[in-house]
């Protein structure tokens, strides 16, 4: 099962790296996306603490975005 988990992303990337697509949003059209308010991780320290609070009170874990890595806390 684990082997499949590791293999899948590699195959996906291999498939993707062979393609080329014309970008439908040009670089000069990305001013709004570059605004800090559009960042998924605007404040890494505050976000890290928020995930930590939920991880200690709830059973769900993972795919929080950002660094992750586990805290080993019970």
């Amino acid at each position, binding site marked *: 099962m684990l082997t499949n988990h590791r293999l899948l992303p590699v195959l996906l*990337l291999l498939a993707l790296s062979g393609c080329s697509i014309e970008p439908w949003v040009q670089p000069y059209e990305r001013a709004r996306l570059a605004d800090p308010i559009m960042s998924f991780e605007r404040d890494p320290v505050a976000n890290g603490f928020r995930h930590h*609070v939920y991880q200690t009170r709830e059973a769900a*874990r993972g*795919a929080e975005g950002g660094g992750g890595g586990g805290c080993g806390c*019970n």
Partner: protein
Amino acid sequence: MAPKVVEEAAVAVIKPRALTQRIASLLSSGRLWLLLMLVSLPGFSLFATVLPEDRADVMYHRYDGGGVEVDGPSILVRKSVMDTVSLSANYYVDSISSASVDVVSTASPYTEERTESSLSLDYLHNKTLMSLALTKSDESDYLSETGSVSISHDMFGDLTTVSLGYSVGNDDISRNGDADFGDQVKRQNYRVSLSQILTKNTILGVGWETITDEGFLNNPYRSYRYLDPLAGNGFSYLPEVYPRTRTSNALAFRLKYYLPYRAALSSEYRYFNDTWGIDANNFELAYTHPFREKWIFDIRYRYYTQDGADFYSDLFSRRAPQTYLARDKELSSFQSHTLGLAMSYEIKPGFLQFVDRGTLNLAYDYIRFNYDDFRDLTRGGVVGEEPFYSFSANVIKAYVSIWY
């Protein structure tokens, strides 16, 4: 008894296994192939990923809820060296004082401190960002060491960013007051994420993470409750027994949308399941509103719900009716609601020449937990029919950020 525990704890602190050696030995066992293969992929580098910004954050955090108070500082400093390397260091402290409902029912209130330090290195090579991070978390009865590698790459004219990550961690668990107890946990995380520009106003994020744990996975202080006709109050306690393996999967979707005026709307959905029979879903909606030049306000609502583990029960029918037994409320069925408010004010500290800009930030979260199958024994009642437990938590974050 106590001096012996202190002595053992001291030995553990003086002779920690060399973290880097352990990480290297863990990674050398054939797991680096994934990373190496990706780096060597022909035509893989289409556009540049950039290094994270140079910044420093100093935060005071406080959690107060359900008889548990946790507070402490967190300091993060990040600095790039030349144009290819960015280093960061984080130091974090939790000072915990706990008299939670489980503790009040079965043990004594306690205080303890957890410190976490981490170092990370990001390296930009051939327009691909590779990261390496080491984290160590230390408390009197729990020592945890984690190493992570990740690789991130932009493709399709910078519209798509794909990231892969792997972490491995080893935890050493002991029990204060019991020098004979000692066990370990080995943790591994596998992450894949994708960030996709959909339109000039919209970004989509998709993340998948599988986590495997092997070892001693319960809290060594917690007990399950069972009906006991011989006990005066009708029930007794025995230490919990959990499986020694757990594998969980989480899939998350995030959407961020820039509104016609300068403001952002974001939403998140995550599905979670694991081999213990826990299913969980959470949904979040947030709104970010800049005000004049210097202010940014955030408001968000998050709903979380989970089904309990297969081997959870608030009250077992008798002593050891099955192999695995848990009464940890985090493994029960419950919902939580969070309402979060945050504000940020931009400053330009003129007296610090090297600082480009800074922000002063204050955030407050109100969280309400309602349990479906965990009873509050402090409120009395007929055995097995005590009122269900619920509590509220207040979470405060106050921090200063500077960019240089």
